[in-house]
């Protein structure tokens, strides 16, 4: 009898174990259903903001085109020609309104420069100013762009990186652009998917980092052979080289990656710079596809030291595709968001949210991945993501876009993909071994993620409710106040899809404050300047960025939501030059223009 009872207990225990995943899933679904209940109209009252897609109404009519690469890749073309939709924000003509530069990648297709007319509409002026016709088989096609005033003349210049010949354009007083590529001594061919402006040595001139993806010897339109794929899905080191162009002034640059220790052959997909340790020098985070991430600490502008493993961020190899910094807990320290791949039942890499480990700082800085704990781990085949306070409640939220190849609905290439991806390097690295996609989707038609931050360590996903409901293959996201209303709008560039402009309506009761910085002895774009706002007993830090996310650049202006009844105690700006500026009476609800003293 006793034996029988113990057996019954054992069976119940066993069934209980089997039920655990189902119970967890049910609880998760229930809380999500409760969160998503209600119509989009209620989003404003529930979450404090709502998006409305207004691209057509505002005159933005842009569709990204993908390249047609070497016919030897025809059977897997959607998988290979899968990037190039990008957006970078700047006020190129200094009229006070943020403009958009967006890239296309089809041979013969045009990039666009949407000038913000200030009346709610935009006009593409890329053709007029010489920034449209950059996509040619002979010179490669655009993958992205970043704005930065490399000659400190007050106007943002433009660097366009490509699978092909990179291009630098000098901004001629906001009226036009002059090609400056040759003078800058840029290489003839780089297959790049990331670039960022930074003043790594704090000499007051912007330098430029460029991260190669495919090796620079590969011409994707004229392949010598088909052995151009990564040698491993997560341990590949046969990608493109890295470049650091040191700005010598007068439009000249010197490539110094080897001298400063920025040598890697990993497959870089995203990079962004920020001063993570309070040294005054920008550190560099590189998210690599097919491998571990790399974090380079800046050794006082002399060298970079790779500290991925030491800091904890370079341990588990994944498919890194994004780097975004955000002070998500209002502690005055940056967390770092890296996107990866999660496909239910096949591959659950999970995105990484690297939060500084308590008690670590400086050279001993360490990070722990709290993406799961904070609720921002699963984003599908994630690409671009950006932090920004979308509802002005005083906490940095997160907008993520995703989706790899949306082809025939109801079809799936994942089985064939995973079959080869797990194979030996001689198999995976040769494109001819990859089964034909045949019109099948690969993590396509995915729902986007908009996570709002409760400030206490949890994010809630509200994309569908707040109106971010598209299912295009999203690549690049930029957050920008397009209408100067104190609200961050979202611009999303989609692969083989339209450029979407999500206009943000924010509940008016929340306060905000913006800062438009102009460097003096620092670089004039003020890239690298850190702004700390102290208000209502808390502090939040943001940094002017020369590129973040995936193939994206937010507005240079920094935007702080402050919540209700805000009272700003002080604002402290750490300029790249080392100067520290206190602003005692900033104006809430305004864009505060600050020049470096």
């Amino acid at each position, binding site marked *: 009898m006793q034996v029988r009872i113990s057996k019954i207990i054992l069976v119940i225990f066993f069934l209980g174990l089997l039920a655990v995943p189902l119970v967890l899933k049910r609880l998760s679904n229930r809380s999500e259903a409760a969160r998503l209940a209600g119509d989009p109209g209620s989003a404003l009252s529930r979450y404090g903001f709502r998006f409305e897609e207004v691209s057509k109404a505002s005159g933005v009519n842009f569709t990204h085109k993908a390249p047609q690469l070497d016919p030897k890749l025809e059977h897997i073309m959607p998988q290979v020609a899968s990037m190039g939709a990008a957006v970078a924000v700047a006020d190129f003509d200094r009229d006070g309104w943020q403009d958009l530069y967006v890239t296309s990648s089809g041979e013969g297709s045009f990039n666009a420069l949407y000038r913000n007319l200030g009346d709610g509409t935009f006009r593409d002026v890329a053709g007029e100013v010489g920034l449209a016709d950059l996509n040619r088989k002979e010179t490669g096609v655009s993958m992205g762009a970043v704005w930065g005033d490399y000659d400190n003349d007050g106007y943002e210049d433009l660097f366009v990186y490509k699978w092909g010949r990179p291009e630098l354009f000098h901004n001629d007083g906001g009226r036009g652009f002059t090609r400056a590529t040759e003078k800058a001594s840029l290489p003839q061919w780089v297959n790049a998917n990331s670039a960022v402006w930074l003043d790594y040595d704090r000499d007051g001139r912007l330098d430029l980092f460029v991260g190669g993806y495919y090796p620079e010897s590969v011409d994707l339109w004229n392949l010598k052979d088909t052995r151009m794929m990564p040698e491993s899905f997560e341990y590949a080191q046969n990608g493109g080289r890295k470049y650091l162009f040191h700005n010598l002034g007068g439009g000249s640059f010197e490539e110094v990656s080897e001298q400063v220790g920025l040598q890697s052959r990993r497959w870089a997909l995203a990079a962004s710079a920020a001063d993570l340790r309070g040294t005054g020098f920008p550190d560099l985070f590189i998210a690599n596809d097919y491998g571990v991430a790399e974090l380079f600490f800046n050794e006082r502008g002399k060298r970079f030291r790779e500290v991925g493993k030491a800091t904890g961020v370079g341990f588990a190899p994944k498919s890194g595709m994004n780097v975004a910094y955000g002070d998500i807990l209002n502690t005055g320290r940056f967390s770092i968001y890296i996107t990866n791949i999660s496909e239910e039942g096949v591959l659950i890499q999970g995105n990484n949210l690297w939060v500084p480990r308590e008690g670590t700082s400086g050279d001993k800085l360490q990070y722990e991945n709290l993406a799961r704990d904070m609720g921002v781990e699963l984003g599908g085949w994630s690409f671009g993501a950006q932090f920004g306070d979308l509802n002005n409640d005083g906490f940095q939220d997160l907008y993520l876009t995703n989706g790899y190849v949306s082809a025939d609905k109801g079809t799936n290439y994942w089985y064939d993909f*995973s079959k080869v991806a797990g194979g030996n390097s001689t198999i995976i690295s040769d494109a001819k071994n990859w089964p034909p996609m045949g019109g099948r989707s690969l993590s396509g038609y995915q729902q986007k993620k908009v996570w709002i931050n409760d400030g206490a360590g949890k994010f809630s996903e509200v994309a569908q409710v707040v109106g971010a409901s598209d299912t295009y293959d999203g690549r690049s996201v930029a957050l920008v106040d397009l209408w100067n209303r104190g609200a961050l709008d979202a611009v999303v560039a989609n692969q083989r899809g339209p450029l979407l402009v999500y206009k943000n309506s924010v509940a008016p009761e929340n306060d905000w404050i913006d800062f438009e910085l102009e460097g003096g002895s620092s670089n004039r774009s003020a890239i690298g300047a850190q702004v700390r706002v102290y208000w209502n007993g808390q502090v939040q830090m943001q940094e002017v960025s020369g590129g973040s996310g995936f193939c994206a650049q937010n507005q240079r202006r920094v935007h702080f939501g402050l919540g209700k009844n805000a009272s700003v105690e002080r604002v402290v700006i750490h300029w790249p030059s080392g100067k520290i500026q206190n602003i005692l009476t900033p104006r809430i609800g305004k864009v505060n223009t600050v020049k470096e003293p």
Partner: protein
Amino acid sequence: MNPAYSPPASPSTGEAPESTVSGSARGRRFRYDSRLTAPLFITLILLVGQLSFGILESYYKTALAIGTAILVEVVLARVFTGKWPHLASAYISGISVGILVRSPAVWPYALCSAISITSKYVLRVKGRHIWNPSNFGICAMLFLASDSVASLSVQWGNFVWPMLVVWALGSIIIWRLKRFHICATYVLSFLFFSFLRSWLTGHPFLAEVAPITGPMYQLFVFFMITDPKTTVKSKPGQCAVAFSVALVEMILRLNENVHAPYYALFIVGPIANLIEMWWTARGSAATAEPALTAAARNNG
């Protein structure tokens, strides 16, 4: 995968033969417990993978999987058999879960280990567990928690030397343990079915062969399908089962099932065991019946 050479709960019923190794010059004799071969081998695979590529999601997740497996084994063995178990089996289960389960969450590692070990005590027919424990545990997780769990498929290094070392060493060890025929049958069957799949689908042959060049198959071939506790006894039967696993796997692969090998073993393993039990019982009954008849005649 488990008990590659899973020791039973009670040492007295152990299957794996113990071997002895002559000791030092003083003439002492050290006894080498052959049940340690499999744990040592899987630890070696782990070390090769970790040192060459850093394969583990994290040390603590693997440690959690191993610790949970050992803890559950000890508790269940004490409660239900009253004996202290040999821990090699639980160690292999735990380390297998630690390598094969891929999840950014922590709980799947503990849960999968717990399910694997508990299945040994619950899913028994005539005193014998019929599923390979860690195969059962991983299949349960893939089926029930697919939103949180995937299996090792693409996450290990794709380079040839670590793979060759493991295959060569594994083959030698498996040969010495007299189970190489199972691995060989499976590998040859897989290659044959790869050719067949390539012919049927028109996909490159190397694409079809690719999976077996990955690390997951090293563990699958050396530890799961050779597990003595959950494979049939006869040598021809073992070869037939290995072939059947490859056959069912091919069918699943033609239906684009990403976890085909796990599910194939999940399906074929218990069926083969049940057939063997039925066959053995039938044979025993046939021999017992004349004996009983004779005894009755004598008594009568």
